[in-house]
């Protein structure tokens, strides 16, 4: 009985992982497409293990299938982001500040004529640790997914997000001190 339930759950998780892959297909380079189904099955296997290990934490706040699906979505999307970046390097690249007009996200392109770019660059160099600089430059300026950064640095999405969050806080405060931006709300 339990085996049948676990098999049905696994089938659901594989289906959901394949759905995630289908929605992310456009983000995957052509060379990565042939292995995508393997990535989905592995994601479903790991998600099943996570669900079974955490069964006693399920509180019924959402339907069981919704609760289970979040684990496979997390696994599948993380793996697919890493899969898409598997042949690309993630490393500190100071030339990003010179390449901004061509390489930066749209938000930065609109800022390029502003003194804010140089204030931001100064704040990044003066206020961030080496790890914060790598994470901020990769995630915020070069759009490297945080799951990819986490894998390369041997840590978790949550840990990288915390580093990014702390870096952003430092930069916001530095820019306010330099006369850019507004005071932060008290939390």
């Amino acid at each position, binding site marked *: 009985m339990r085996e049948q339930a676990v098999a049905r759950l696994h089938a659901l998780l594989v289906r*959901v992982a394949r*759905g*995630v892959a289908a*929605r992310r297909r456009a983000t995957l380079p052509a060379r990565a497409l042939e292995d995508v189904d393997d990535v989905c099955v592995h994601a479903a296997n790991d998600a099943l293990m996570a669900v079974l290990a955490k069964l006693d934490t399920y509180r019924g*706040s*959402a*339907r069981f*299938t*919704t*609760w289970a*699906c*979040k684990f496979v*979505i*997390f696994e599948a*999307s*993380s793996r697919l*982001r890493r899969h898409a970046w598997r042949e690309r390097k993630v490393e500190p690249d100071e030339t990003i500040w010179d390449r901004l007009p061509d390489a930066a*996200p749209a*938000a*930065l392109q*609109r*800022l390029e004529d*502003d003194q*804010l770019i140089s204030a*931001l660059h100064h704040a990044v160099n003066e206020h961030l640790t080496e790890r914060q600089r790598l994470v901020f430059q990769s995630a*915020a*300026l070069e759009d490297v*997914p*945080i*799951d990819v950064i986490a894998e390369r640095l041997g840590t978790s*999405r*949550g840990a990288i*997000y*915390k580093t*990014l*969050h702390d870096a*952003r*806080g430092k*930069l*916001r405060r530095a*820019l306010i001190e330099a006369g*850019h*931006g507004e005071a*932060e*709300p008290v*939390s």
Partner: protein
Amino acid sequence: MTKSDLQKLLGSPDRDPGCDAGLDVIDVYCEAVVRGEPIAGRFTEFLTHLSNCTACREDTESLMAVLREQEKSGAG
């Protein structure tokens, strides 16, 4: 320069509990949205996190898509 340009780079200064706390509520949030329940005030910190974190935002959209497909097929 607009405020939203800067916010995209630096994130919102509002309280953001992070990815792990987000994973705790993503299922409850998605079901509430798909059911059309009022969410104002219920998920303030999670919504701040979604505005700051591309990966969690994409995962939320994926879970929402699964729930909508289940609803359409009558499995929800």
